[in-house]
């Protein structure tokens, strides 16, 4: 009985429909208590459904007609409605480009639906393999935790803004809608359905970025909308071309048979990749993601970790078998490597914490694209691992920065100097997040290690990844050190934060650590996601990943790391009993911290700031050139397929 109710089909219907219902309820409920209950219960059920789904994968299903209406017909109608909404937004914000792109998409879609598509989808409307499962777990676990933290965050946020009427109903409505759209997207087999959810995420991100209603917020939201509409346009053209050449309307056949057609088909795939690049804010479309940080921090956390930008990398990983062994695949690899390097360079030049996080997201997504482009089984697995660990750690870091920003009213790294004295636990969690970003044996580094060993055969890509990782270490280490920068030897007393904030931060921080230790098992979970013709790249025994030319002893190293950590913590305990001295200032020090007797017997305040090397890595210096180079690479990619 229970088995029947919890069938894979029902569970996935639940995963898609439940957030939509929750969203509808949130949008109409004015009472914050009841809204909180709705969010918590929806989130709880999503987590449970996602976890149960692990045992049910892989599966596929087509929903029965509902009151005589077939799902594909309903989606068709909704699709046009969605595009009409985007068109309306184009008129409302007087953006010619949005209007043009929306109109074009409406006509292209109409042509495609009414004149081209003849046969119905032959297999199922939805399917779920281990890659979809992985995405669902990320969306439902990380995404829901972010929504939980948002409850506490938004209360503070609105108290601070002193609004006449709360805008939270709409806010949480869209947040939940976003999760539903994402679940729908990763479960879709039918490309038209995929396109619908693809556009829905665009609309959701527009609404969330515009949430605060300020001039900058609206401006950023409009930019995000037109850039992603460009992606949507590329998507529909790509779909038309691919269908015209091979009749491809579903994702599944790609997994089974790989490359299917010639010139126009490949050009179509290239356009789909282009759409993925806009979604994932790769150069030259990075500005929408950078602009998106005007939104409340939970929005950034959601966009950067479990939703939106992950759509792009998911799509390209899906398409990887279709372009295996082609010039297109190589171009994607080089383009990804290029983005990884350049975004890391730009991050070095930033002192704005949120911008550093944004560039780091772009950079990591570039690495995942590079993996998809390298297109060996090792690289694909590396890409999937990077998706998981990046999602968890980036969500943690964004939520930490959000909490910090609400306390110190700044997102500048220089203002976070010595934050440990003020917010010890949040500062430590941020440092932990940084450590998990750049250090073995944690999962992100495992992914990077795999990516590097996979890229060793491609000279351009490996050069760029090598340089990019060195830059990455630089900007993260600098931030972690700045947070701890304080003459401090007192006792550790965690600061006050709402329970939901601690819940989300704690779960993400501990979760990322445990998941890293469990990486060999995670590897076994995702290996079945490799399509036909891709052999498992590693053997996994006793928590060690090994192949003939590389070995990463994940579990033993994790144990050693834990041991080292414990010893170091004991050392801290003992050091806190040691005599505390003042930092060396090369002069007689006064009672006030950091002040010494300087020339002419005057007190001098010693100060040091971080190196941001803006003469080398500043945005002004680099952005134009990087965008230009990215444009050249994209042209090369698209032209090379013909």
């Amino acid at each position: 009985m229970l088995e029947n109710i919890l069938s894979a089909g029902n569970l996935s219907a639940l995963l898609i429909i439940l957030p939509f219902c929750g969203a509808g309820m949130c949008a109409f409920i004015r009472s914050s208590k009841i809204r909180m209950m709705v969010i918590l219960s929806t989130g709880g059920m999503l987590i449970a459904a996602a976890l149960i789904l692990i045992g049910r994968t892989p599966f596929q299903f087509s929903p029965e007609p509902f009151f005589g209406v077939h799902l594909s017909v309903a989606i068709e109608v909704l699709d046009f409605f969605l595009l009409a909404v985007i068109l309306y937004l184009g008129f409302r914000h007087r953006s010619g480009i949005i209007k043009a792109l929306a109109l074009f998409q409406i006509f292209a879609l109409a042509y495609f639906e009414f004149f081209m598509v003849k046969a119905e989808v032959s297999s199922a409307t939805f399917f779920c393999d281990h890659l979809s499962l992985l995405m669902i777990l990320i969306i439902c676990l990380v995404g829901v935790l972010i929504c939980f933290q948002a409850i506490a965050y938004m209360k503070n946020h609105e108290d601070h803004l002193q609004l006449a009427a709360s805008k939270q109903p709409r806010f949480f409505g869209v947040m939940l809608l976003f999760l539903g759209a994402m679940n729908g997207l990763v479960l879709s087999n039918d490309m038209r359905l995929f396109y619908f959810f693809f556009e829905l995420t665009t609309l959701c991100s527009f609404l969330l970025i515009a949430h605060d209603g300020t001039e900058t917020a609206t401006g950023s939201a409009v930019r995000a909308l037109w850039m992603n509409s460009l992606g949507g346009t590329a998507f529909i053209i790509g779909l038309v071309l691919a269908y015209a050449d091979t009749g491809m309307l579903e994702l599944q056949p790609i997994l089974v048979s790989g490359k299917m057609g010639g010139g126009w088909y490949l050009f179509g795939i290239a356009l789909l990749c282009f759409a993925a690049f806009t979604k994932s804010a790769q150069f030259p479309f990075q500005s929408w993601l950078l602009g998106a940080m005007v939104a409340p921090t939970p929005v950034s956390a959601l966009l950067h970790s479990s939703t939106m930008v992950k759509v792009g990398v998911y799509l390209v990983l899906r398409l990887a078998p279709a372009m295996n062994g082609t010039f297109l695949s190589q171009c994607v690899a080089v383009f990804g490597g290029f983005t990884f390097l350049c975004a890391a360079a730009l991050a070095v030049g930033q002192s704005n914490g949120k911008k550093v996080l944004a560039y780091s997201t772009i950079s990591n997504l570039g690495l995942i694209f590079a993996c998809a482009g390298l297109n060996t089984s090792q690289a694909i697995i590396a890409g999937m691992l990077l998706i998981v660990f990046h999602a968890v750690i980036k969500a943690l870091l964004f939520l930490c920065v959000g909490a910090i920003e609400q306390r110190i009213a700044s997102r500048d790294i220089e203002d976070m100097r010595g934050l440990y004295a003020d917010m010890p636990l949040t500062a430590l969690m941020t440092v932990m997040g940084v450590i998990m970003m750049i250090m073995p044996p944690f999962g992100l580094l495992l992914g990077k290690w795999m990516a590097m060993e996979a890229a060793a055969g491609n000279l351009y890509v490996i050069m760029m990844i090598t340089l990019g990782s060195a830059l990455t270490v630089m900007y993260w280490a600098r931030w972690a050190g700045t947070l701890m920068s304080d003459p401090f030897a007192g006792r550790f007393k965690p600061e006050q934060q709402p329970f939901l904030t601690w819940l989300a931060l704690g779960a993400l921080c501990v979760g990322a650590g445990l998941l890293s230790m469990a990486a060999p098992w995670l590897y076994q979970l995702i290996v079945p996601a490799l399509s036909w013709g891709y052999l498992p790249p590693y053997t996994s025994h006793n928590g060690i990943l090994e192949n003939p030319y590389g070995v990463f002893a994940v579990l033993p190293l994790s144990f050693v790391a834990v041991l080292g950590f414990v010893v170091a913590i004991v050392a801290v305990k003992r050091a806190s009993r040691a005599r505390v001295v003042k930092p060396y200032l090369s002069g007689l020090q006064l009672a006030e911290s950091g002040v010494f007797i300087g020339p002419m017997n005057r007190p001098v305040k010693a100060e040091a700031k971080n190196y941001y090397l803006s003469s080398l890595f500043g945005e002004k210096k680099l952005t134009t050139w990087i965008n230009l180079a990215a444009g050249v690479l994209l042209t090369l990619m698209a032209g090379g397929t013909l």
Partner: protein
Amino acid sequence: MIETAVYILIALTGGPLLGGLVGGLDRILTARLQSRIGPPLWQPFYDVVKLWSKEKTVVNVWQAFCAYCYVAATSIALVLFVLRSDLLLILFIQAVGAVFLVVGALSSTSPFSQVGAHRELLQILSYEPLLILVTIGIFLETGSFKIERIYSWNEPLLMKLPFLFVVLGYALTVKLRKSPFDLSTSHHGHQELVKGLLTDYSGPILALTEIGHWYEVVLLLGLCSLFWATNWIGMIVLVGVTYFFEVLIDNVSARLNWRWMLGYAWALGLSLSLVNLIWLYVG
């Protein structure tokens, strides 16, 4: 199992012993080049013992944490090297140590230590890509990242990777804190940043950083030895000559600023690596 345990023990005890002796030899050699007699061979050990017996003082308790993590990371890297594990992974773990040393320095507000830390980051930025590219070269030649396989290769790698060996020497100069690249902290007392990176590490905690550095030195010399891994004599001669060369360069050159370091490392180091890697691809 027992064999593994023995290897781990050898790495953990032999590492600092060898590293300290290399340090002692270095100081004698440097002294002779400067027409001095120099300290006894065991001086580095006396120094560490003395530091260890001093009173423990801290600026920030997290410095102790960072120092321990530095030693842990560098010793694990050496252990993995002795166990003939994955070279790329070893480099990543070695980088962990370097980062913790920087974070520890940043946790003090002293400008000397802060500037030293940032210079150290620039040093990492200079040598890290070079070390990884050397590894990539070794992979392309031997088809493996595992040191096991590299030791069983029957031709000295130096023959196929001459430029990459130069690049490794380059990285070695930075890593061993030798002039002209001893920007962040120096062995000598003429640093404009006092002791730079290490300014606010003191007493037993400073002793730990010294021990960590020994592990690192041995690891890097091990990396050098891979280039003539076919017989012991070749290995020792190559490492000896390389080290002598490092000391010589240290004594005849003045310190450069970070722009020069980064410029040289990336322009010269990367082009040399690129040329050598292309040879391997073509060959």
